[in-house]
């Protein structure tokens, strides 16, 4: 995968480490077990060296002392079993730490989602937020598991091996250590040469995938216009470019391994020669040379491991950084310290000189005033971008007003808890959101512990019951992720049933219907109007019938209410509404 680099490595890392604080005891355990592992393990080559010396002197002298060999091997056995045990404990503890940390990151991100203002979701592309809470967190937990388990072992092993090498033969150890900078220089040089090829590989992969995606999604068009040959020709060009870039990238980066083993082999030859000379001159025992060779071997291993981990660490930290970015995003305004309790309201709503803006220079709503009596239906009409949705978003306290106030039964909604404001308002959006559960669960979404009878009752009142009964599993039909087993119109009906069951004092409805056929639309309309009975309703209206029946029509344009009144009044006034009406509905079917 593409390795991304975090922008501030140190800060992100130290913050991640701070997050591990609750696991301090476990981390200490991880470290202690790792230390135990290395301490026991480094003695093994040494003991084997002793055995070699015993055999060596035995062969040259009076025969091998198998009693001494046996004792030594018994010690080795104990060290082997001990170090394996430590390694096992270390691995298990690491898994616990890594998984707890991943758990906490997920938990915090999910909690954060609930505290972010809606503006955050409206401003950043949906896919972006999603990718942070899913892909990035997955990446982090994967990296944590891999890195945490290996990094302590690798570092401690490296340390232990170096200590042993110097203890056995300092000059030879120095010789062996010289190869480290050589290895680093070589891998760096290779990585540097491979980098542009990798970049090119990712860029061409992007181009190729883009072409594939377009040609497959627009497949019918390619066929209709008979352009398959051009599609294949363009593909072949991208494909060839990708082949060349990928081949070079793979080859250049692939030479790292032979280069590293070359360096390793050089060390091996060097140690063999110097060690051989020293044994021959009697300044070092054969067993010590053997032990030394094994340390050299084990010394290369953690280095390659650590090198392999750098890309995992980098991409993991880049993900962590993005998750932290989410966790640091500004939250919605805290609830008032002593909120005014808001029970079930009657539904009198007043907007008093309300204004709203995202950024200071771009007012979205300006000086808007409005009062609505309980039970009235308010139809909001106007062109796209007029501020219709903003108006209801302010009422729901999805956005906070920048000036003026909104009252509900005389209480400023900013002085009450959000949950109490929203609990009074039912909402049906054009974007029909259902979660992956059964139809019954979806209808019952807004309320706790509701009986099947009440669910069915709500379904009957909103035309849901009829089509649910035609489904093989009825109310237990599971809505899958895309909701493909239920049509768009039926989904909308379910959202209406959901609001019906919640039985709120007020309603916010968005009428814009996606392409549903006319008969379904009729049902939708009937369901919505039965839902409106006796409730103060704000309707972003598209249907003439709704608009005509409304008690108040608000005509909005550029964040202001430009006209307000009943259908007849507004037609008579011959202003905005009359023009809008003429444009939208002047060519109805001749009766």
């Amino acid at each position, binding site marked *: 995968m593409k390795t991304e680099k975090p922008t501030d490595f140190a800060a992100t890392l130290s913050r991640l480490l701070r997050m591990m604080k609750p696991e301090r005891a476990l981390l200490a355990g991880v470290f202690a077990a790792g230390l135990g592992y290395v301490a026991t393990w480094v003695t093994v080559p040494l003991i084997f060296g002793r055995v070699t010396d015993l055999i060596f002197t035995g062969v040259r002298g009076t025969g091998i002392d198998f009693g001494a060999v046996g004792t030594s091997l018994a010690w080795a056995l104990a060290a082997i079993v001990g170090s394996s045990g430590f390694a096992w404990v270390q691995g298990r503890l690491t898994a616990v730490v890594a998984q707890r940390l991943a758990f906490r990151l997920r938990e915090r991100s999910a909690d954060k989602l609930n505290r972010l203002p809606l503006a955050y979701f409206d401003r950043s592309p949906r896919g972006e937020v999603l990718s942070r809470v899913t892909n990035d967190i997955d990446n982090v937990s994967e990296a944590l598991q891999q890195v945490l388990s290996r990094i302590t072992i690798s570092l401690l092993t490296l340390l232990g091996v170096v200590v042993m090498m110097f203890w056995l033969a300092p000059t030879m150890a120095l010789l062996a250590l010289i190869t480290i900078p050589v290895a680093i220089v070589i891998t760096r040089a290779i990585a540097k040469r491979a980098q542009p090829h990798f970049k090119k590989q990712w860029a061409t992969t992007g181009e190729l995938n883009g072409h*594939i995606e377009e040609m497959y999604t627009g497949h*019918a068009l390619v066929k209709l216009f008979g352009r398959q040959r051009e599609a294949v020709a363009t593909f072949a060009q991208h494909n060839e470019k990708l082949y060349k870039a990928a*081949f070079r990238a793979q080859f250049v980066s692939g030479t790292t*391994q032979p280069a590293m*083993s070359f360096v390793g082999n050089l060390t091996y030859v060097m140690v063999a020669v110097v060690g051989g000379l020293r044994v021959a001159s009697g300044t070092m025992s054969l067993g010590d040379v053997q032990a030394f060779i094994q340390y050299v071997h084990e010394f290369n291993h953690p280095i390659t491991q650590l090198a392999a981990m750098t890309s995992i660490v980098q991409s993991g930290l880049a993900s962590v950084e993005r998750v932290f970015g989410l966790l640091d995003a500004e939250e919605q305004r805290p609830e008032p310290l002593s909120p005014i309790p808001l029970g079930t309201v009657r539904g009198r709503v007043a907007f008093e000189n309300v204004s709203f803006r995202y950024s200071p220079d771009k007012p979205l709503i300006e000086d808007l005033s409005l009062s609505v009596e309980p039970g009235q239906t308010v139809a909001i009409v106007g062109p796209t971008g007029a501020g219709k949705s903003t108006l209801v978003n302010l009422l729901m306290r999805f956005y906070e007003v920048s000036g003026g106030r909104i009252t509900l039964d005389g209480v400023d909604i900013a002085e009450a808890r959000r949950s109490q404001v929203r609990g009074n308002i039912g909402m049906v*959006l054009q974007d029909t*959101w259902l979660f992956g559960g059964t139809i019954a669960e979806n209808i019952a979404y807004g309320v706790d512990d509701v009986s099947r009878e009440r669910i069915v009752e709500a379904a009957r009142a909103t035309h849901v019951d009829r089509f649910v009964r035609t489904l093989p599993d009825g109310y237990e039909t599971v809505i899958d992720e895309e909701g493909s087993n239920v049509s768009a119109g039926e989904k909308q009906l379910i959202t209406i049933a959901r609001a019906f069951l919640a039985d709120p004092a007020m309603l916010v409805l968005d009428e814009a219907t996606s392409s549903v056929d006319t008969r379904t639309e009729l049902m939708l309309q009937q369901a919505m109007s039965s839902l409106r009975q006796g409730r103060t309703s704000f309707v972003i209206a598209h249907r003439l019938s709704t608009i005509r029946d409304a008690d108040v029509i608000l005509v909005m344009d550029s964040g202001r209410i430009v006209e307000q009144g009943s259908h007849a009044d507004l037609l008579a006034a011959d202003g905005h509404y009359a023009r809008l009406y003429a444009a939208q509905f002047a*060519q109805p079917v001749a009766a």
Partner: protein
Amino acid sequence: MTDEPERRGALLRLLRTHLRPYRGSIAIVVLLQLAQTFASLLLPALNADIINNGVLEGDTDRIFSTSAVMLAVTLVQVVTAAAAIYFSARTAMAVGRDVRAAVFERVQTFSVRELGEFGAPSLITRTTNDVQQVQMITMLALASMVTAPIMGVGGVIMALGQDVPLSALLIVVVPTLAVAMRLILRGMGPLAGFVQQRIDRVNRMLREQITGIRVVRAFVREDHERERFADANGELMGVALGVGKLMALMLPVILLVMELSNAAVMWFGGLRVDAGAMQIGALFAFLHYLMQILMSTLMATFMILQLPRARVSAGRVEKVLTTTTSVVVAENPVTELPRPGYVDVRGAGFRYPGAEQPVLHDVDLIARPGQTTAVVGSTGSGKTTLLNLLPRLFDATGGEVRVGGVDVRELAPATLSSEIGFIPQKPYLFSGTIASNLRYGNPNASDEDLWRALEIAQARDFVEALPERLDAPIGQGGSNVSGGQRQRLAIARALVAKPDIYLFDDSFSALDNSTDAALRAALAKELGGATVIIVAQRISTIREADRIVVLEAGRVVGTGTHAELMTTNDTYREIVLSQHTVEMA
């Protein structure tokens, strides 16, 4: 992703076919890997020689000369290894390229039906990620899978060369390691599957919470969602911890087997040396070979770990490559149309394989140049399917479809596609510019042609308002223009190609009433001699049609003009009335 049963042997079949052109390179890779492995196996033997003949005899010249040989062998090793990687990378990437091209070209032959059966997203994954997997396993196979057995066998031979009786240890040690690793990995297999399921569940919940954030807040369900998520999150942690703990066994097991076998070699080797059957240098070399054999065993085990994913991917790729299109081009296709603009559908039927009910049953549709024919019916009545039969997006499973006086199955694809202009329900634009999209069906059209088409399609005004006008960039799928603009551009695109027959599949739905009316008026004026077939929801769109065909559950239940159908046809009347109520109530 593993939604289909694994196709046994798919990976082998796929590789066998696509590796064939690279037999030469593969042979070179194998030779180079042999040389490379041999060189690295030689080093311990040379070291043993240093000990036996140099160190023990105190012969420093021997030490220097042998180490010079060791250096040379090391050089040979690095050069051959690098060359092996060169050829492996070239072959593996070429195989990836070839498989990818084969998949893409196969998909280009698919009809809309096969594409729909796979689904575009699934085909995209198959062409990109799945091929990538196959490419990766090829690289791995050439770079390491070839070496593991060479190293293993070579190590055994060299070990035997040092001392035969001691080599009996291998019979115990190697299977022990292999079996222990298999046990751990087998335990991890299903657990890894569980982990993926839990991850999917957590991700699904988060996705739901983000897409449904307004609903969650409107219904004050934050706490409920938090609890739901905490459950899923906890479950994921539990299963992932299981895998982590099993994985923690890996290092200790490897360590235990390796070091214990070292100890065994020391003990039994000591006995052999004592008996004078073996030199002490050989003991050194033997230890080395044992490690190499065990390492290659480990390498092979990890390689096997990579196989399942590649196998699944290969199966998914093979599924595409073995799917044949249902729309077959005739052997000697007709390229001349005797009656351009004539559409005659007689008794056409369409049924998905295995479906109980046909989508279309015994449908007749006639359209003539200069006339407008409309098709109406509720959702699911088969209108779009009927329209799709004309340009052969798929083929009728019964009856006959004639365009321009010829059965579409006899027509050359190019002739058919230039005869028909189709404006789909969900218009799709390609990334590029407005001009490149408009010229899609007619690359030679002049700028005037484009502007004219835009004018008829009621798109001239908004294109003129763009700073780059015709060269204004279009994002993938047309994401940077509104639905209505997209629809008008798609209409203009069809107009530029100047076909004899126009098919409008509910192409006016995203337009407001006044634009819809202006567009229809312009089309009526400009398309005088063309054949027009319109599928529409809005009755106002099709009232003036010369002939209206009413579909209900895949059957024609009425044909006639608006006035005729209003008096004779119940279904038609019901559709008209339901709209009437919606718009006028």
